[in-house]
């Protein structure tokens, strides 16, 4: 096997690529070429957008392309594809599936969404009720999914469905790629407390999926889904923020620039939050240093737990600090934002939207279970739902 690729090798390749491809040229052509050159996600195998380089070197490549003014694939817009679908297809997909899906996924030509959560299966994801039934050489899918961001723009969805209700719940699941253009797929915007509709409900009524759309073996859906979720959890924001880079910066600026709002009682509260924000920021710095050194720690879950609580408290204090202004809002329109911006809008929006931070992507309660059991090694609770057939469980 070849010697490991170094940063210099990569930079040489990037420079060579840039010499041959005009960053100012056609965006899509450029991105496709970058993929084909193995400079998309360098830790992926050759032929699938990578060259099997160490994952930590990706930032070197991205920075060089950015420096050259090259177009990127708007990663936040396709984060579900990049963060969840791609690793799953790579690990569990067939050669044909990898070849078919990964390139347009990375270039952003095809947006992906996640069809996991259901009204009756939120924290208990393995309890999904959406049925997939054999139909000749394919499958017929019926059910309802929820909290599906980008569903209204997605070409494909990663779908967890129940193919055997008569076995225990973790054993009766199968994992599919759902064709979002197929007949019977209906996407409805789901309005949230902020008035916006970031998410969707997806109704699946007699949706026919070819068997080639299945990822992994029938009944192996939970194992495949774990790959997806594992990658969701490790995904933490790109680069470390500078001091006061996050929401705390907004509060600190307000405190500094608007002395008329200050009250003695809130001063110490602002300082306490500043301390917690800086502590969390340094935790992120340390975590990234560990990841970069190939020693991933479990601090990822700590980050998400603390981030959710902190953003909720900072914005809550900001609203009170603003007093009368905190009683006013900047609009309840049912917009459909593609990205969440906790800094862009007003304090009341920040406060409301932050409420979602402890629910989406694994509730803080589920995360605490995970930390307690996987990090601290505390025993699991007595389970009553893993032995019986799914269809016999109370719900």
């Amino acid at each position, binding site marked *: 096997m070849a010697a490991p690729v170094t940063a210099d090798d990569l930079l040489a390749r990037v420079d060579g690529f840039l010499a041959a491809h005009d960053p100012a040229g056609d965006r899509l052509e450029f991105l496709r070429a970058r993929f084909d050159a193995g400079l998309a996600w360098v830790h992926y195998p050759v032929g699938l957008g990578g060259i099997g380089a160490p994952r930590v070197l990706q930032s070197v490549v991205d920075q060089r392309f950015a420096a050259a003014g090259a177009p990127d694939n708007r990663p936040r817009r396709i984060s579900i594809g990049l963060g969840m679908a791609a690793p799953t297809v790579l690990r569990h997909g067939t050669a044909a599936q990898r070849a078919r899906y990964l390139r347009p996924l990375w270039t952003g030509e095809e947006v992906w969404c996640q069809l996991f959560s259901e009204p009756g299966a939120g924290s*208990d994801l393995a*309890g999904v009720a959406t049925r997939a039934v054999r139909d000749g050489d394919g499958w017929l899918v019926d059910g309802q999914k929820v909290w599906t961001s980008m569903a209204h723009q997605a070409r494909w969805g990663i779908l967890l469905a129940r193919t055997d209700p008569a076995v225990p719940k973790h054993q009766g699941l199968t994992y599919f790629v759902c064709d979002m253009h197929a007949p019977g797929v209906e996407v409805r915007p789901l*309005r949230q407390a902020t008035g916006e509709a970031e998410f969707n409900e997806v109704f699946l009524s007699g949706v026919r999926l070819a068997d080639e759309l299945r990822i992994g073996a029938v009944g192996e859906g939970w194992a495949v889904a774990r790959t997806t979720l594992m990658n969701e959890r490790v995904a933490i924001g790109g680069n470390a923020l500078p001091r006061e880079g996050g929401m705390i910066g907004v509060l600190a600026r307000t405190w500094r620039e608007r002395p*008329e709002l200050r009250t003695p009682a809130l001063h110490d509260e602002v300082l306490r939050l500043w301390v917690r924000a800086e502590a969390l920021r340094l935790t992120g710095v340390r975590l990234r240093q560990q990841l970069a050194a190939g020693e991933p720690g479990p601090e990822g879950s700590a980050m998400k737990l603390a981030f959710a609580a902190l953003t909720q408290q900072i914005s809550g204090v900001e609203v*009170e600090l*603003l007093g009368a202004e905190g*009683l*006013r*809002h900047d609009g309840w329109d049912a917009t459909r934002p593609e990205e969440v911006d906790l800094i862009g809008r007003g304090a009341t929006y920040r406060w409301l939207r932050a*409420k979602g931070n402890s629910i989406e992507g694994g509730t803080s309660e589920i995360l605490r279970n995970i930390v307690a059991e996987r990090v601290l090694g505390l025993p699991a609770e007595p389970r009553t739902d893993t032995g019986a057939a799914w269809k016999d469980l109370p719900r």
Partner: protein
Amino acid sequence: MNLDLRYTEDQELLRDSVRAMLADHAPWTRVLKVAESPEPDDADLWRLLAVETGLAALAVPEHLGGAGGGFAETAVVLEELGRACAPVPYLGTTVATRALLHLGDTDLLRTVAAGEVIALALPFSAGPPRDDREFVSKPEVQPHFVTRNSDLAARSEVEVTLSGDGEPLLNGAVHSVAEALRARVLLVPAGGGLYAVDTSAAGVRREQVVSLDETRPLCDVSLWNVPARLLASGERAAAALDAALVTGAALLASEQLGLAQWCLDTTVEHLRTRYQFGRAVGSFQALKHRLADLWVELAQARAVARHAAACVASEDPDARLAASLAQAHCGPVAVRAAEECVQLHGGIGFTWEHPAHLYLKRAKSAAIAYGTAAHHRTVLATLTDLTPA
């Protein structure tokens, strides 16, 4: 000697009838519709409360057409209105009533008794000052007391001039006024006095603002050469204003209590019936303990809110402290209850189609109304001689 902090039998009967009425006429689906609509509140519900049942004039003496009840009863009604998140200008009218009772203004008290809305033209965030002399003795604290928000404050001065025939005319603006959009009369503090303004007069403009709590939308009031009636001036005006704001802070606590109780009850009910992992979610100990802690806070909020209501009802000298204590405790409890309600409902609690967000927004807005908990703690610092470092 302690005031009685329990509910009387009559109060329990009053509660039952109000709750039944609201169950019929103000289900949350209707509350959401009203909040989404351009309407400032639920006119039909207000008519029911103010005209048909006379509950809005509970505290107005019978000889003036009121129900001759007291603020302890008003507090019970507010508990139920909070529990229903009801979009009616009940609290503001109660606060205005308190000022009118202080001034003994029989005309306007009759107007209240007739079911009209009367509102105090101050930003909803204005809380009672440290002592009732602050208005008159410390004019410099006035802007702070009216609002700590400079650019809004700039838009919040009302000047008094005299018309040709010596009638006072008001010019200026007040921002972020609550429960005033349907008001027949505004009580406007201006030039050290308190004036009554008929909102049908030319030159009165009320602009509804997008509010965090759309079940109690605010408006910015502007006045151009509006004829006004002087109700009181100097210390008498200050004292009336003070009594009104102390009452507002004290009775809002009952609304917050009812709101928090709804959040707890609704969350408990959800967790009893929601199954995950083959169990009722409410059987998970971490959630049980959080709700137990919340209930402990609520038990204390009830005692504190009842104490504040009792002090206001009996014009107890402890009323100012009781009111600040109530806001310092009940405001945060209501917010926490609403936040737990959202969180423990999971995704569904974060949606527009579930009532939780209505309570969340009302709780946060109420935590600022009549002064934040932080403001009231500074008031308490003065009242208890726990002076700053």
